[in-house]
């Protein structure tokens, strides 16, 4: 497997990219390259959702037992995953925990038949076939059912001092299934094609891809029935199935999660009540744009209104007539869309405050999809910059970044972006001077080198859109999330074509997802070169 260490290992400070968005997406159109993939382990969240769907367990067992996933920025990056003793020990314990709870809480619904006794092999095999198909996301062979059915001996044997019955065997089957590598990893076998190292995926493998992409969990019975019926190699069939899936609340949760990782606000660093209010605000806007009203996706960044409660009305100094949660217009001023939300504005801070450099990195990496290289080793990124004239003002202090040519080369591409958002603090509140320094007036003017100047989230969003950087980047981000790793350069032409379709659709985000799954590439896999 190819090793891809993330380029964005630098914690802080600055860096530059030689490339522009044109460099990454302006390459001549090449033949489509099938996305390389390796058996992906379910992320903790995917595992939790899948287990909840399987046995009704709402206790987030994977999150409780397993070591946290790495976010790069997505939690499903298979390059980061490696089997470890810590993982295997946790899975062993998690499976026992889940199986025990399942036999307490939802036993009859899980088993699905009423056993005549501990030795009822018909009911047991029926359960194994049904549960196993859900757990392994494909029908089980008779041999496999035999293997699992052997555990029924623990239901029937007579041991003094042991209370066992039919469900003892059921619990053991659940334990084994939850530790089955085909449950834990998305193993794709497919059938060979005439292209080297490329396989065409089977119906159940395609359905598994659809379910984890659109719902963040394994396919349910209804989806597996569709896979059983076959035909998912057909693009239109996939599109139609996916379209139905997008109408489900699970798709909403998945799209919300994608955004929270992409834009970095999955663990908002504010007190819980405020953090939850921010999350509700952002969730409402995404639902409105992507689902409820199927708006032009760019409105996520340009929306003139926001959904707030009394806490946020106070926080943002916005009017909220009646005091009950409602959509309110921003009115005149610099605010628009998600870049005005306290959720997004709380991220990429530094030294307990907003960081013009970090916000520049945020815009460059997350909204332009540029690589920002680490700072040179001799740059001190751990102390706030200091001004040469002794001024405590941020604008003067960050001027230090422009004093040497080597600093300015990179910071010139970063800091001015952040300064365009400086009027908005880490909670999205408007401010006219630096925190604690009334003499440090914030002029709020920012610039994206080569594109133009702006002030505030609204003008920044307008520039991201008019320069056609945002639509290309959101497509790339979604692709990276979908295939479970950062994209390679030779894969970017596909993204460019997808971006063109995205634009042609009037920026229909769900349409972009549907285009992705109905592309031939979605039903194929490429083996990594050795």
């Amino acid at each position, binding site marked *: 497997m190819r090793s891809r*260490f993330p380029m*964005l290992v630098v*914690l*802080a400070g600055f860096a530059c990219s030689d490339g522009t968005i044109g460099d990454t997406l302006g390459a001549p159109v090449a033949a489509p390259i099938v996305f390389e993939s*390796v*058996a992906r382990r379910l992320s903790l969240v995917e595992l939790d959702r899948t287990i909840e769907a399987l046995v009704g367990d709402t206790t987030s067992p994977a999150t409780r*037992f*397993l*070591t*946290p996933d*790495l976010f790069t*920025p997505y939690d499903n990056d298979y390059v980061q995953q*490696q*089997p*470890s*003793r*810590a993982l*295997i*020990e*946790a899975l*062993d*314990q998690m*499976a026992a925990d889940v199986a025990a709870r399942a036999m307490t809480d939802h036993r009859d619904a899980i088993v699905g038949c009423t056993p005549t006794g501990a030795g009822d092999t018909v009911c047991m095999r029926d359960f194994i076939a049904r549960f196993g198909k859900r757990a392994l996301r494909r029908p089980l062979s008779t041999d*496999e059912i035999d*293997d699992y059915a*052997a*555990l029924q001996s*623990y239901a029937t044997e007579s*041991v003094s*001092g*042991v209370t066992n019955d039919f469900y003892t065997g059921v619990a*053991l089957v659940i*334990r*084994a299934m939850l*530790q*089955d*590598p085909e449950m*834990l*990893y998305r*193993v794709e076998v497919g059938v060979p094609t005439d292209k080297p*190292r490329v396989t065409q995926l089977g119906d159940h493998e395609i359905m598994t891809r659809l379910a984890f992409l659109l719902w963040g969990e394994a396919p349910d019975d209804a989806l597996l029935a569709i896979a059983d019926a076959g035909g998912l190699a057909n693009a239109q069939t996939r599109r139609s199935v996916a379209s139905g899936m997008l109408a489900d609340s699970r798709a909403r949760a998945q799209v919300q999660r994608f955004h929270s990782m992409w834009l*970095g606000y999955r*663990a*908002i*660093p504010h*007190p819980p009540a405020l953090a939850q209010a921010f999350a509700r605000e952002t969730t409402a806007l995404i639902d409105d744009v992507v689902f409820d009203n199927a708006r032009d996706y760019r409105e996520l960044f340009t929306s003139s209104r926001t959904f707030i409660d009394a806490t946020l009305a106070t926080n943002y100094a916005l009017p909220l007539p009646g005091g009950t949660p409602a959509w309110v217009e921003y009115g005149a001023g610099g605010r628009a869309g998600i870049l005005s939300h306290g959720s997004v504005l709380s*991220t*990429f*801070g*530094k*030294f*307990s405050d907003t960081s013009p450099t*970090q916000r520049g*990195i945020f815009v460059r990496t997350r909204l332009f999809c540029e690589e920002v290289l680490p700072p040179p*080793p*001799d740059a*001190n990124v*751990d102390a*706030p910059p200091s001004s040469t004239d002794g001024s405590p003002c941020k604008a003067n202090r960050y001027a230090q970044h422009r004093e040497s040519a080597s600093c300015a080369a990179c910071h010139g591409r970063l800091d001015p972006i952040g300064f365009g958002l400086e009027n908005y603090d880490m909670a999205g509140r408007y401010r006219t001077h630096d925190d604690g320094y009334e003499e440090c007036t914030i002029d709020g003017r920012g610039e994206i080198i080569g594109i133009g100047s702006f002030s505030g989230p609204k003008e920044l969003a307008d520039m991201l859109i008019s320069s056609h950087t945002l639509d290309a980047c959101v497509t790339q981000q979604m692709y990276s999330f979908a295939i479970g790793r950062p994209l390679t350069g030779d894969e970017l032409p596909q993204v460019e074509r997808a971006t063109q379709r995205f634009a042609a659709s009037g920026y229909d985000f769900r349409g972009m997802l549907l285009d992705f799954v109905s592309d031939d590439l979605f039903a194929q896999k490429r083996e990594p070169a*050795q």
Partner: protein
Amino acid sequence: MSIRLNRRAFLRSSGGLMLGLPLLDIMLNNNGTAFAQTGGALPKRYAFVFAGQSIGGDNWAKNQQRINGANVTAEHFVEPAATGAGYALTTPLQPLAALQSDFSVVSRLRIPYNTTSSASADVPAGGAYRDFHGGAAGPFLSGMRSNAANFRARGKTPDQHIADLYRAETPIDTLTYRCQPVFYISGYDFSGRQYISYRGDNQPVGAQTQPSVAFNAMIGAVPTGDPGENAAIAFNNRARKSVLDLVADRRQRLLTRVGLADRRRLEAHFDEVVALEKRIADLSTSGIDACEPPRTVPTDPPIGGDNAGSGSGTIGTNTGYSGEEERATAFADLIHFAFKCDLTRSASLQLTTFQSHMNVFGITTSLGYPIRADLHEVGHNGDDDTRGQFAVSLVLQWHIARYAYLLNKLKETDEGGGKLIDNCAIVFAPEGGHGRQLNDGVTDNQTHSTENMVALVAGRAGGLMPGKHIRTSGAHPAQVFLSAMQAAGYTGNTLGEVTGNIPELFTT
């Protein structure tokens, strides 16, 4: 090799019975486990406790600091003023006051670097690529030079060397624990900062972060109960084994159908399942019950969210704290028990990660001096009121208190005619030192430095003679680790590209 042994150690290793010496005592076994059966010498154990911080503040001399708003000039630096025995304990070492005769301080350690070139190809043997956090981690852990700022070790770490040594003799080859579960900075993640154990060149070992899982993988693997319940336990153990057998048996069916990349990944998974089965079997015959294990499963503290600003200097809440202290206690309890019961002879405990952004507001508040910053920023800025040597010393003291907790438990435990700690080599070392900045090679009094590093070695295994301060002239930290490895039975005289121990650790 030039390891110097004291008389007792020499006699012990010579294998002869010497009346009048403690050898008779060490033939005895208090807990009725493995050694009584073999009649051999008591086992030697190695553990490494790691702190993700340096030992001095940026631009503050060793004796300068700001405490609660007042500038103070007084010693708080970790390195004691006097050498030898009976030195005055510095602020960070205070938790070890009652253990002063049980550990040694080794100071003025230095990871070499090229003073004239920062090129990757010019890094000297055992040296650091000149980018502190990412470049010093590798040579620190493995004695192998780094060639990039990628936090990766390019060789096997001491805990894994010791694991190799005793793998056939104990149920668990080594314990790998980490107390800081998440990175805390929005937009970024560990990228290698979370590893202190490597099986080889760029082969990191993922650590356990959940105390309850660690507990149940060891003590919980061998349930206890009154005799009436034993039948149920045996039944459950058999059932668990059947489940794992079934999972392991899926290997052939699956691996024949997939490509090479999938196969490698899945094989590694299956290998760990098989290893788990073996560990459970070995643990179940290891006599855990006779060692009187703790039976209360530790609680996993909640995981904190992102910090309010990377490198915050004014954090005023405990966001981004995940109960690292409670995790450290739970893991230390397990290491202690595993050593006591000879379940393993090697362990690593990562209290905080390299370049740790753990919020220290809560833990320093409980020490009486709230610092509104995260751990990494303490070395650079502290907060406006408390910074410099005192701030760094205080958070180092917090780390050393976790180490002291483990040492105290080892010292309270009888073994042979002495104490368990007598048969241990327990190392503590923070990530960096205080001196010339590694990155620019120019600025002094910097926290991003591999100069003036300090390590602690506790225990008397293999002839260690603790109780003193040893001031080296730039010995490599790997030489300290190597000394502890040798004390624990390692016969080589190199760690990575670094050769030779610290002889004074073995002399009076």
